[in-house]
C-alpha cells in the first residue's frame, strides 16, 4: 500500500541520513550540539523500532519527553480508581492502565482481590457495558492527550443522548502545549527543538505551536510516525537550527492542518474546561488539564462518588519522573532492566506500550546491551 510502503523507502532514508550527517558536521564545525525532544509516545516507539537514534550524528540527540499518557498520569489517579473499585463500581480501562502502580497497589492486584476491573479496547465499549448493566456503575479511566480527549467528549454526548446514568469518567486529561512551555522553562533540561506529536497536532493544529516557537525560540516541527516522516522531521529541525530559525513547520501536512480539527475542538470546548493538572515528573502545570464542565458533573466520577484525586507516591527507587522530563535516560535508573522489566514493571514508563523505558528495553539496545555485558 503506497501510503505505508512509500514512507518506508530505504533508498530515500539513506539519502536523508546522508543529508542529516552533513548537517551534523556543519553544526559540529560551529561547536554545536542539538537536543531534540519528541513529545509523543508513538514517535518514541517508532524511533526505537526503526533504529533512528543509531543513524544520527553524535552531536544530535533525540530525547524522549512526556508523550505517553499513561506515564504522565500521577500515582494518586490509580489510588482514586482503586477507591472506586472498592466502592463496587466497574472500573473500565485501556489495558496499559491495569499494571500502572498507584501509591500502594495497582488495578491488577485489585482485580485478583475481587475488584471488577474490565479492559476495553475502545471507550465506546465501556459505554456499551454500562448500557448492558444498568444496575452497576461503570467508570471509565479517561486519560489521554487531545487526540483521545475529543473522542471522550463524543462519548459523554452519546451517554447524555441515550440517558445512560450509570456511566462516568474519572478524568486525567492532559494538554500538550502547556507541558511544552513548562519543559522550556525548566532550567534542568536543555531543549533546542521539539519534534511535535502527529495526531495531537491533527486536533490542535499547527497554529497552537506558534507562541511556543516564538517565545521559546525553538523550532517546532510536526512529523508523522513512519521512518521517513521522522527523518524528514529531524532534517527540518536541523535545517532551522543551522539557519538559527525558530518556527513551526508542518511536515505531516497530509493529516495536520493549520487550524487543526475544528469539529473536535468544538466538542472538547463544549464538554470540558481547562484545569490545573498534576503530571508525573513535571508536577502541577496551570491549565494543562481538562475536566468536565459543571453541567456535566453527573458524568464526572470524582464528583459523583466524592473521590479526591491526590498526587500520590511514586514507587521507591523509580525514576520515571526524571525519564518523563527527559532529564535522564532509562539506563540511568538503577531499576531499569534489572528489577524493572516489561514482565515486572515498577514504573509506568516500563508498563506502557508507548513508555520510554519500554521503548529502550525493547529497542534501545546500546543501553540494554551495555548493562548486560557488565
Amino acid at each position, binding site marked *: 500500500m503506497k501510503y505505508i510502503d512509500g*514512507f518506508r*523507502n530505504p533508498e530515500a532514508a539513506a539519502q536523508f541520513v546522508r543529508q542529516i550527517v552533513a548537517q551534523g558536521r556543519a553544526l559540529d564545525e560551529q561547536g554545536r550540539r542539538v537536543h531534540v525532544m519528541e513529545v509523543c509516545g508513538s514517535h518514541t516507539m517508532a524511533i526505537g523500532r526503526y533504529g533512528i537514534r543509531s543513524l544520527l550524528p553524535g552531536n544530535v540527540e533525540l530525547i524522549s519527553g512526556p508523550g505517553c499518557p499513561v506515564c504522565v498520569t500521577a500515582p494518586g489517579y490509580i489510588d482514586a480508581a482503586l477507591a472506586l473499585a472498592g466502592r463496587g463500581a466497574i472500573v473500565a480501562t485501556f489495558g496499559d492502565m491495569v499494571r500502572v502502580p498507584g501509591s500502594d497497589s495497582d488495578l491488577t492486584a485489585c482485580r485478583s482481590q475481587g475488584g471488577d476491573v474490565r479492559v476495553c479496547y475502545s471507550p465506546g465499549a465501556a459505554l456499551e457495558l454500562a448500557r448492558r448493566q444498568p444496575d452497576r456503575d461503570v467508570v471509565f479511566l479517561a486519560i489521554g492527550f487531545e487526540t483521545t480527549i475529543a*473522542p*471522550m467528549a463524543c462519548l459523554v454526548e452519546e451517554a447524555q443522548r441515550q440517558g445512560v446514568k450509570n456511566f462516568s469518567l474519572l478524568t486525567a486529561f492532559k494538554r500538550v502545549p502547556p507541558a511544552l512551555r513548562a519543559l522550556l522553562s525548566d532550567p534542568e533540561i536543555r531543549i533546542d527543538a521539539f519534534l511535535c506529536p502527529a495526531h495531537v497536532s491533527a486536533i490542535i493544529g499547527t497554529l497552537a505551536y506558534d507562541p511556543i516557537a516564538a517565545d521559546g525560540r525553538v523550532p517546532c516541527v510536526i512529523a508523522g510516525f513512519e521512518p521517513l516522516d521522522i527523518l524528514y522531521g529531524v532534517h527540518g529541525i536541523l535545517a532551522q537550527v543551522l539557519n538559527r530559525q525558530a518556527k513551526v513547520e508542518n511536515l505531516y501536512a497530509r493529516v495536520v492542518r493549520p487550524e487543526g*480539527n475544528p*469539529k473536535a475542538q468544538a466538542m472538547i470546548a463544549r464538554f470540558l474546561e481547562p484545569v490545573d493538572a498534576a503530571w508525573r515528573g513535571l508536577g502541577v502545570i496551570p491549565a494543562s488539564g481538562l475536566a468536565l464542565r459543571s453541567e456535566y458533573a453527573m458524568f464526572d466520577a470524582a464528583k459523583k462518588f466524592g473521590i479526591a484525586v491526590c498526587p500520590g507516591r511514586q514507587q521507591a527507587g523509580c525514576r520515571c519522573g526524571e525519564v518523563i522530563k527527559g532529564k535522564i535516560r532509562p539506563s540511568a535508573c538503577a531499576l531499569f532492566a534489572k528489577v524493572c522489566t516489561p514482565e515486572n514493571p515498577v514504573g509506568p514508563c516500563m508498563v506502557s506500550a508507548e513508555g520510554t523505558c519500554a521503548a529502550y528495553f525493547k529497542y534501545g539496545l546500546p543501553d540494554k546491551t551495555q548493562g548486560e555485558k557488565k
Partner: protein
Amino acid sequence: MKLAEIRADGKGLAELDGCRHVVDLSLVNGVSPGAYLIVHAGYAIETLDQESADATLSLFEEMAKEVASETRSANAEP
C-alpha cells in the same frame, strides 16, 4: 484505514489489512467511501489529504532516485 461504506446509523466501515472495522465519523466532516481515515480510539479524527500525501511521496521518490543513480555511477567506475 480506507472507508468502505457508511452505514445507515452514520457509522463507517473502514478496511485495514482486509479486515473491516466500525469507525465513528462524528469528528470529521463530509467523508465518503474511498477516503483514508486517521482513526484513534474508534473515532476518525482526520482524513488523509491524498494530494499532500502524494506530493510528499514524490519528494521521497526523487531522493531515492538520487541514491540509485549515484550507486549506478559508482558501480560504473573502473
